[in-house]
């Protein structure tokens, strides 16, 4: 079973307060524009955050790469140049929650819908990533969803797509190893 679910229901709440972790849980929210120029700066901040709060470096590396890819996708396709990133770690529950949000053109939204449909039908993340690599080799333009397939394969997180009008959110949630 793919660890994935797709939602197209209205977004109920996009505020940080909707997160369920305790108030003292490590977390941050970034809202920035113009986004593309800041991506590499944010990536280093995010990588350092994960190294600080997660119990092992491999997990921190996987999550940093996944977060970067989500962020880059959101920034590249944002129609107003803005992207919002939220990351929250719930040590007690053993979960990490990454939420990325932006406004996108209808063509991009439809492409995301199709990609998430493919993800939901995929056998597993690694197989799907390998398939996307082969498919990308035949494409001369566009990534064909390679970044999101990489996120799924790298992070082993469950992913959810939410759409309301032209605002899209991708929620990624994963398990983290216990410290110590």
């Amino acid at each position, binding site marked *: 079973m793919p660890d994935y679910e797709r939602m197209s229901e209205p977004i109920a709440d996009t505020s940080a307060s909707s997160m369920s972790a305790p108030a003292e849980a490590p977390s941050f929210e970034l809202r920035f524009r113009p986004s593309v120029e800041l991506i*590499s700066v944010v990536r*280093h901040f995010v990588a*350092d955050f994960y190294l600080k709060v997660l119990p092992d470096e491999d997990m921190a*590396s996987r999550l940093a790469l996944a977060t*970067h890819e989500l962020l880059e996708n959101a920034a590249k396709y944002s129609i107003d140049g803005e992207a919002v990133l939220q990351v929250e770690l719930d040590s007690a529950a053993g979960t990490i929650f990454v939420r990325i949000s932006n406004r996108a053109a209808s063509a991009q939204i439809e492409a995301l819908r199709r990609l998430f449909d493919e993800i939901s039908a995929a056998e597993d993340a690694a197989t799907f990533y390998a398939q996307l690599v082969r498919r990308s080799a035949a494409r001369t333009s566009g990534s064909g969803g390679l*970044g999101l397939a*990489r996120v799924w*394969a*790298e992070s082993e997180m469950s992913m959810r797509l939410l759409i309301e009008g032209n605002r899209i959110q991708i929620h990624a949630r994963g398990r983290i190893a216990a410290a110590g």
Partner: protein
Amino acid sequence: MSKATPRACAIEVSRGATYTRVALRGDADLDAVDALGAALSEVHARAIADRCAEVIVDISQLEFMNSTCLKKIITWLGSLEALAPESRYRVRFLSDPTIRWQMRSLHALESFSAGLVTVERS
């Protein structure tokens, strides 16, 4: 470990008698996409013209590669695979297992035609 500041991607191409070597260092992110695509196109054209046996891609000092740059590499490998077998050259990646994304992300590249692409730990 992450460093505090972003590092530009450096691309160096050198040639031996039977091989071409491409060394990538730093961070291959959005700023590096065009340069990487152009470098790989040039390497591909020269390798075919020179009947090069092997292209070595040294990523052992490449700290990061985003999917857009990865796509450039995949497109290059797709072009290579599309050649007639007698015109192909081998591609060997030299990776560093301590840079954690490399083996995870590059493993799928070995799904190209058998023997065409290998990923080695340097």
